[in-house]
């Protein structure tokens, strides 16, 4: 696979939307302006948990400049129905009341009312005149507390579902998952060495720089048009239609340029509210979240408690694994516990394992996906235990990983076996890297490594390509472009047709024009929408063969298409553009199309190396050098693959060292700002070196694997291992912020 020579794939063209994005011309949702547009403001709960006794909106409604006010009673009743959203499913009643609270508020920031006015300042002032009477309830924000029998209940009717078996009494635990492979109990008895620890991780946020924003225009004919910052226009359309109980076909969602998502811009928050405000006022309405709203009322990713245990033989073979995981779901059921369970041992071929997982509701915003959702937490646990095992066995931390790495045929804890995968190759790349082979010297310094995995999904994508009279192509696809995907998709079409990247004009369509396409998420776009573009190109070639046969007076079967996209038949060879032009002049208009639904995970594996230095007096960690290695299958646009690796890694570094939701005694967030949430600035990280491994994915025409998510998985573990190697202190809690590391080092000194 890797030996194939491509013309376009593997090159680094300037992205198609680049000029717009460096000149300020690119239109993001908050940049759109419609005639007569009003500004919306959402009033949010100041309490972590309370009954809404009454809401009096009269004063707000009477405020000059105010055109509409909505509360929960303006939302239609939706049943307790699960809607399949392409990527996962959602209970519509929960989705609706997360958009606008009904009888209860379940977290600080929960929307209780909204106002549309001629100006956002007027809307805000009016919203503050809405009188909401709350009856404050006991609240809970720590996952183990929420699991206790006497914990305050968020939902009276919620019972634990253990794969269809429902518990009798209500609790805050909607789901219990349990996996078994082999006989773990027996294997632990046979193990020569066992390591076991408990770990905790804090709630963290995706931290996209663009706050959620929407413009809704509810037309008199019942047609609802929405412009929004979403990772998936089709899922946004479906969620909005379901919450509003209007026909899907009445909703048009136009995805604007989107300022980051990382999993956090899949669920709808503002769309239904803006739509109802628009319907009531008869005017288009724009709502943008404040940064505090984004932290308090969008979907961060779960905090967790984990107990993990691994047993190995003296030769280093891991034979037994056990994990007990409890993840925050947030205010409503449906967190990331499934993938957490499935990823805890995903890098190692452990014959006997048992995993229990609990999804836990508590008074935090409903969690949502964040880059390899659920995997970073468990990697923090497992990858540290692997290092501890190695130390106990006197093995090198790389060697033990190489010895136990999963490969083709290894069975996952949840059952399925892996197809060809690239973890061994990534570990080999660690071993051969300049970083690994350069000794780290100096006091208080340490090096750590960790491996990581994310499934990478396929899902549904569509593409259509219209041939222009000069043989260039307009490519219509439905994947919102968060990181250069227009280009990585267009490059695959260019490759198959024998064109250059800039012969293709890619366009991200809205839900009326593009074929159905699932979200930009799950590391799937370059893989699946790229595959759709490839297939659309193939479709075009088929059509052109048939038409060329008429033109050249030969049979279509005699015409072949070469690797360079040229058509050969009837004794001549003609390039794509030339043939397209010829056909156009002959009156033929060409549109190629394809829909794909690849179903095999693309299995992204990676490994990372971190060098750090700890200030022994303050516990502050400085990252000195960092290398991120990942199997991309085949890198279509290496610069943007590197960008995914570097970006995911730095998010992981932030998660590891400083980021956290800090809760006050009243269970409200203390640090809902970029100042105090502390994402890495440019000064907090070094250059991130990358090594792209290309093992080729047999399920993709060019061998692509998804790369977007895996890079965030190893950093907390790699840094924890590095910190241990620098300080002899094992950090089991995220973030490993200076006060916590200092305290841990102090306790260690005292105990020694």
């Amino acid at each position, binding site marked *: 696979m890797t030996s194939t020579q491509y013309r376009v794939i593997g090159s680094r063209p300037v992205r198609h939307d680049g000029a717009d994005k460096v000149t300020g011309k690119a239109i993001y949702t908050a940049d759109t302006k419609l005639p007569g547009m009003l500004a919306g403001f959402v009033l949010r709960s100041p309490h972590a948990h309370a009954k809404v006794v009454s809401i009096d909106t009269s004063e707000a409604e009477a405020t000059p400049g105010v055109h509409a006010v909505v509360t929960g009673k303006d939302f239609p009743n939706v049943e307790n129905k699960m809607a399949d959203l392409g990527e996962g499913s959602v209970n519509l009643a929960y989705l609706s009341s997360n958009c606008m609270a009904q009888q209860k508020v379940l977290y600080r920031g929960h929307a209780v009312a909204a106002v549309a006015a001629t100006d956002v300042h007027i809307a805000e002032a009016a919203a503050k005149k809405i009188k909401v009477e709350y009856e404050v309830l006991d609240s809970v924000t720590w996952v183990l507390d929420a699991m206790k029998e006497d914990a305050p209940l968020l939902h009276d009717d919620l019972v634990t579902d253990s794969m269809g078996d429902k518990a009798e009494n209500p609790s805050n635990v909607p789901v219990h998952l349990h996996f078994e492979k082999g006989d773990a109990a027996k294997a632990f008895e046979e193990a020569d060495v066992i390591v076991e620890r408990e770990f905790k991780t804090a709630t963290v946020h995706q931290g996209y720089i663009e706050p959620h924003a929407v413009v809704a225009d509810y037309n008199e004919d019942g047609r609802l048009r929405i412009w929004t910052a979403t990772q998936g226009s089709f899922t946004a359309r479906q969620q909005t239609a379901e919450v509003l109980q209007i026909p899907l076909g009445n909703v048009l969602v136009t995805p604007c340029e989107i300022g980051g998502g990382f999993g956090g811009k899949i669920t709808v928050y503002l769309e239904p509210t803006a739509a109802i405000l628009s319907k009531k006022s008869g005017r288009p309405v724009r709502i943008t979240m404040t940064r505090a709203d984004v932290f308090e009322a969008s979907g961060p990713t779960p905090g967790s408690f984990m107990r993990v245990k691994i047993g190995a033989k003296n030769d280093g073979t891991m034979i037994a694994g056990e994990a007990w995981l409890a993840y925050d779901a947030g205010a409503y059921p449906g967190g990331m516990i499934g993938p957490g369970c499935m990823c805890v041992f995903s890098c190692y071929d452990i014959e006997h394992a048992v995993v229990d997982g609990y999804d836990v509701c508590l008074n935090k915003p409903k969690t949502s996906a964040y880059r390899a959702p659920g995997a970073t937490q468990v990697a923090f646990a497992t990858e540290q235990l692997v290092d501890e095992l190695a130390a106990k066995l006197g093995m090198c931390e790389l060697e033990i990983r190489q010895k136990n790495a999963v490969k083709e045929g290894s069975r996952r804890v949840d059952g399925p076996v892996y197809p060809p995968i690239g973890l061994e190759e990534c570990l080999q790349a660690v071993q051969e890297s300049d970083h690994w082979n350069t000794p780290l010297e100096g006091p208080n310094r340490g090096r750590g490594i960790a491996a990581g995995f994310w499934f990478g999904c396929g899902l549904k994508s569509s593409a259509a390509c219209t041939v222009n009279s000069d043989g260039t192509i307009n490519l219509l696809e439905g994947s919102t472009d968060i990181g250069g995907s227009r280009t990585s998709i267009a490059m695959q079409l260019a490759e198959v047709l024998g064109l250059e990247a800039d012969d293709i004009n890619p366009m991200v369509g809205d839900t009326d024009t593009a074929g159905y396409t699932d979200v930009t998420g799950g590391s799937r776009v370059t893989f699946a929408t790229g595959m759709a573009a490839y297939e659309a190109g193939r479709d075009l070639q088929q059509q052109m063969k048939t038409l060329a046969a008429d033109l050249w007076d030969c049979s279509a079967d005699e015409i072949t298409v070469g690797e360079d996209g040229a058509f050969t038949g009837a004794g001549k060879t003609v390039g794509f553009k030339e043939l397209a032009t010829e056909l156009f002049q002959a009156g033929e208009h060409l549109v190629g199309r394809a829909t794909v639904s690849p179903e095999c995970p693309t299995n992204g594996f990676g490994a990372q190396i971190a060098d750090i230095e700890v200030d022994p007096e303050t516990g*502050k960690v400085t990252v000195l050098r960092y290398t991120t290695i990942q199997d991309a299958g085949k890198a279509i646009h290496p610069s943007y693959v590197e960008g995914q690796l570097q970006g995911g890694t730095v998010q992981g570094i932030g998660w590891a060292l400083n980021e956290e939701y800090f809760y006050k005694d009243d269970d409200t967030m203390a640090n809902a700002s970029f100042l105090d949430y502390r994402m890495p600035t440019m000064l907090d990280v070094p250059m991130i070196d990358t090594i792209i491994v290309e093992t080729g994915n047999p399920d993709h025409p060019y061998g692509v694997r998804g790369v977007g998510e895996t890079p965030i998985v190893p950093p907390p573990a790699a840094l924890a291992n590095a910190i241990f190697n620098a300080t002899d202190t094992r950090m089991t809690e995220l973030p490993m912020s*200076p006060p916590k590391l200092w*305290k841990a080092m102090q306790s260690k000194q005292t105990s020694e």
Partner: protein
Amino acid sequence: MAPQSVSEVVAVLSEHGDRAKLLAGGTDIIVQLREGLREADVVVDIKKIAEVTSFKYCDENGLSLGAAVACYNLYEHPQLSKLYGALADSTHIIGGWQIQSRASVGGNLCNASPAADSIPALIALNATAVIAGPSGERSVAVEEFCTGPGRNVLENGELLVSLQIPAQGANCGSAYERFIPRNEMDIAVVGVGSWVKLADDGTIAEAKIGLGAVAATPLVAEAASASLIGKEPTEETFAAAGELAKQIATPISDMRGTDEYRTHLVGVLVKRTLTTAVERAQSS
């Protein structure tokens, strides 16, 4: 409104009292007004007034720093940044570059955050606040200026006009350092400003240490400062001063750090700033 003279401002402030707020760099006040933390009917832009937007230095009287002078003027100034190391250090880390283009030392002082970066530096440098009001001008030592978190000594009708910072002779050096979890764009967990004057024999002749984020207002570490006098500038001396400084710290535990951690950091930062201050004094 944007008055042209101090007396105009005093008149506006006297008329509107609490409901008038002054705008210099705006990097705190605009956020506070927007978030409803402070309220105002009138916002008075003082950047059209020469006295508050200019600064001058002379060897006799030192630095007269207009209250609205933006941070960058200090750390970019070749002479002042050398003479007033602690002030240059602190102004260079207040927010990012964008903030430093606007934020002023006077505003940082008036905002009276216990964690303000410039205040421990000003305290160490023995700065005095010059205040204008309905009954004329008065001066207050910077360490007396803050009266609580977000509160200061300014009375109705008064404004901070400038800061007077004594001249820096030979053998003087100062430094400010804060601890933050990131490397920029953060609020000090603890901040320490240290100033020393060395005697001809190399011992410490005078010293002053200011502490931030360890109490309701920035503090002078008097015992710690006094402990240095007459001593050789050694690591032990600095560590001992650090221990003394820790004794007056009464920090809170919050999202930025525990009281225990903050108290510990006082010792670390006193030692580090004294080391830098002495190095600067030795090379001045």
